[in-house]
């Protein structure tokens, strides 16, 4: 794994989520798949990203509340998976990667919270003190974005290196007789896709469309 490239990609993903330009390359599905592509293994990145995306769907950035930042955590986790395994896929490592990313996104979310507090000093209180000049406004605004970019790179790199060490240590020894790591992930994914219905009006308002979807999905499976 080229960690310099991972840091740059983490920076782009961190910026995209809020600062610039919200094109949603920061969605775990995209971020993890493209991280896999960096290692030449986009399919495994996609498998990680799809599960993380299921968990990210139900988190809405509404209000000023603190929320997890899933994009940089997905990059960190996927990069670690790519560094610690290969060339063949390792289901146990994939399971542990996803669990790590779901924890790390809380840390990356805290880094966003911290940055927004720093921005209170950098632009919030400063603009109230006036007199603001156009040049100083631009410098401070772009400065805040630069901080965000560095933040994204740092949380991705730190998380990725830590996760890679953890995976190398735990993946070879992990075992539970009755549990298949992929089975567990399929169940977790199904729980979260079911929970996503609550975004669109829930069972009460949207059960017809939802049940029709399940029917079509089942038919599609049988046909293929």
């Amino acid at each position, binding site marked *: 794994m080229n960690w310099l490239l991972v840091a740059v990609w983490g920076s782009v993903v961190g910026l995209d989520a809020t600062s610039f330009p919200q094109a949603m390359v920061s969605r775990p599905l995209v971020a993890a798949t493209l991280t896999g592509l960096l290692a030449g293994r986009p399919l495994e990145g996609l498998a990680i990203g799809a599960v993380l995306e299921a968990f990210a769907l139900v988190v809405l950035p509404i209000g000023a509340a603190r929320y997890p930042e899933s994009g940089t955590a997905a990059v960190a986790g996927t990069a670690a998976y790519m560094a610690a395994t290969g060339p063949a896929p390792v289901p146990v490592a994939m399971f542990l990667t996803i669990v790590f990313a779901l924890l790390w996104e809380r840390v990356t979310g805290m880094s966003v919270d911290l940055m927004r507090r720093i921005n209170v000093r950098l632009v919030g209180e400063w603009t109230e003190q006036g007199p603001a000049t156009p040049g100083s406004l631009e410098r401070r605004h772009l400065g805040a974005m630069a901080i965000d970019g560095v933040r994204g790179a740092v949380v991705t790199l730190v998380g990725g290196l830590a996760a890679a060490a953890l995976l190398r240590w735990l993946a070879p020894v992990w075992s539970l007789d009755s549990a298949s790591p992929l*089975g567990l992930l*399929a169940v977790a994914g199904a729980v979260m896709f079911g929970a996503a219905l609550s*975004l669109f009006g829930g069972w009460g308002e949207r059960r017809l469309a*939802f049940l029709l979807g399940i029917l079509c*999905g089942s038919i599609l*499976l049988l046909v293929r």
Partner: protein
Amino acid sequence: MTALGFRARAAMFLRSFAVQGSWNYRTLIGAGFAFALLPALRALYGRDPARLNDAVARHCRLFNSHPYLSPMAIAAVAQLEAEGEDPRVVDRFKSAVRGSLGSLGDRLVWAAWRPACLLFALALLFAGARWWVGIVAFLAIYNGGHVLLRVWSYRLGLVEGKFIGERLRQSPIDLVERVLTVGAAFLAGLIIPMAAVGANFRAAGLMVDGLLPAHWVIAAAAGAVIGVRFGARVRQPTVWILVLIAILGSVRGGLL
């Protein structure tokens, strides 16, 4: 339609992509709003530094909006400034839109358009599309809507100025929201059977023998029912259960 030249209008539109760059708990996107408006302020007051500084200071104050609808507010305020509107009226305009542009965008984009596009891409991928087809389809469709919304809202702001509310009330927002959420609910249903048999893992070459064993498929179906029943509240408990299993498996594997 406006006293502002093409360059100022184009620069404001491009800067609106960075409107959330200095998001903070005190003034929210206030500084970002002024940053995006600056090309217009420079064009209008550039020869008079005192007036320019005064205008910058006025527009740095608290503001909020959904980022994709912020071009509407930026354009409308630029238009009001160009018409020489009383600063008090401009302030009242900004207070009036900062709540509604936020909640409108939350409803239409964060809670409808974005999850609908993601579910569509996931459905494509789970049904067997190549990885890049799913990713490119998501980015192209989602951002097609994203950029269109920005362009539409920017033009609306330039043309209507402070009267955007009247025009917006006539647009079929409730219908759009309904169509998107019905479609998204259908897609959520569509991918559950495929996720339950592990279609995404099969595609990644993780399962040589095709499908997950039947007991996992049944467990996933039960999981989907739990998800539907409890909604977004299941997220944290699900994460903690996975963490617990990860720890148990590590201990059991002879770690401790």
